[in-house]
């Protein structure tokens, strides 16, 4: 499959100032210390056309900086990047014809006008034929329940409604890549589900690539094919979602439901207690230990009503991943 994004040893630092605390308000505003933050640190990865990529990482790990660099707004200090065969910061305008961008942190609509005006503007800007525009608009407006919403002034919309409109305005021209930086922030559940449907439809029908940052684990579970985890500007994991879940490889999760109250201390010898309730226990356990006599005896005891062995939960995997060094 064709590689649509190639990033090689990309680095980017920001110079800024830290305000210093002072007793006097006036002096506090004058006292500040310069500092340099390394947002991207020799980052490298590749994305294939048509993939849904989830870029994960803690706050301040460099996700937004990476996306802004990939869309050509920011210039890196060193390294290379190619998006759809172009160097983003050298071909920003040419590239902008071919991608869509939605950011949870920025309003991209005309604030004082109804959202439908921004959609009309997008039609004119990208020269979308009227018939095609109407067809796409009907699809997205119906899917995201925007029939009434899009007639209202953007400034009067709720955050979730605004994000839905932002999404429509970013994809009406059917871009080859859609960058979504925490784009589902504030959306209600049914809209999130419908948005996922729209993403999968676009991927299926137009082979659209999605490059998504999110902290919502359900979204990762539902959509991720390719997962990239970054920490302090460095890629610490780059692979498929199942590879991520299997990363702790030999670890399994054993959930046990008991018919009586339990003392979790008694079970620590079998593995790490991840969660415990009055009659419930979740253990992280090495796969080979499942065959040990002690575990088999425990699972077959009369006190156990039910049990389940599974791959480690994604939330748990991610929480273990954040803050790790490159693997």
């Amino acid at each position: 499959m064709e590689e649509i994004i190639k990033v090689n040893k990309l680095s980017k630092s920001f110079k800024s100032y830290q305000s210093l605390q002072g007793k006097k308000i006036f002096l506090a505003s004058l006292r500040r210390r310069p500092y340099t933050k390394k947002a991207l640190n020799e980052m490298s990865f590749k994305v294939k056309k048509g993939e849904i990529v989830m870029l994960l990482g803690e706050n301040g790990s460099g996700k937004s900086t990476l996306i802004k660099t990939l869309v050509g707004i920011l210039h890196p200090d060193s390294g290379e990047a190619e998006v759809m065969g172009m160097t983003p910061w050298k071909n920003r305008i040419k590239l902008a014809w071919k991608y869509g961008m939605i950011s949870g942190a920025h309003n991209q609509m005309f604030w004082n006008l109804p959202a439908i005006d921004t959609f009309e503007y997008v039609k004119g800007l990208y020269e979308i034929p009227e018939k095609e525009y109407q067809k796409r608009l009907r699809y997205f407006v119906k899917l995201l329940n925007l029939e009434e919403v899009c007639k209202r002034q953007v400034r009067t919309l709720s955050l979730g409604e605004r994000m839905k409109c932002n999404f429509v305005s970013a994809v009406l021209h059917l871009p080859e890549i859609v960058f979504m930086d925490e784009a589902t922030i504030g959306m209600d559940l049914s809209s999130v589900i419908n948005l996922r449907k729209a993403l999968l439809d676009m991927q299926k029908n137009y082979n659209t690539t999605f490059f998504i940052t999110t902290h919502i684990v359900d979204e990762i579970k539902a959509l991720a094919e390719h997962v990239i985890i970054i920490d302090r500007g460095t890629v610490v994991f780059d692979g498929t979602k199942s590879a991520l879940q299997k990363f702790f490889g030999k670890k399994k999760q054993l959930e046990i439901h008991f018919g009586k109250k339990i003392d979790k201390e008694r079970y620590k010898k079998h593995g790490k207690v991840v969660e415990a309730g009055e009659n419930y226990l979740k253990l992280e356990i090495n796969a080979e230990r499942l065959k040990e006599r002690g575990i088999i005896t425990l699972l077959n005891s009369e006190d156990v009503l039910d049990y389940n062995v599974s791959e480690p939960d994604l939330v748990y995997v991610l929480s273990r991943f954040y803050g790790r060094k490159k693997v």
Partner: protein
Amino acid sequence: MDLNPHVGRYLEYSKMLIKDRFVYKINLLLMMAFQIMSPIVMLFVWTAIYLASGVSAINNFTLAQIITYFFIVSAMNAIAPNTAQAISDDIKYGNMFGILTRPLSYVGSVISYAAGHMFVDATVVGIPIIILVTVLMHISLSLYTWMLFVAAIILMLVLSIMAEFLIGCLSFFFIDIGGVATMFTFIMQFFSGGLIPLNLLPHGISQVVYALPFQFMLYTPAAIFTGALSSSQAIVSLEIGIVWSLVFLVLCTAMWHGVKRHIDSVGV
């Protein structure tokens, strides 16, 4: 009309800004009222000055010419775009992100913004004031003078956009340029003849003022309209103004190349 696609996409942006400008109609009406009230205040001040001095003309400027002058100044003030504040807002409130993620150049979007606002302000305020003063003051200009007047307005707009762009770009360094913009407005109003017609300034000061580019931003069009500048003087003035436009173009280009590197640090 089959427009160049590059122009077309900026026209789309201008169209949206025109729509946006008409959303708050009361604000537009109040702006219109202010631009009419401002020369009326000047009318009272200058009537008092003429009555006290007991002369019919000061430096060959009659009271009727002074009144006409300030109405035209007011129309020019209304039409001149406030792009410095718009650039500052783009940086302060992160609006620049929405522009840079579309196939638009930032400089092009600033010009589109200025064009959109100029269109509305000229239609709603500027042109009605010019028509009003032409009718009320029984102004009768030759076609040639009208053409010189229109040329002076175009020059005024070009220079104003570029001057505002230079001030607005300071936002890349200081983020909030409210103080700088206020100071610039005051300096511009004084040196461009917004407060006193430049031909009424003492000789020494006027020599300095005529050496600066500000005169083209208010005085030149108003002086052509009132007859304070003859046709031949107007032509010379416009030629100097064009040279100043080229100087401003070089300054703006240099400034933009300088500030582009700062887009990162302003939190786009």
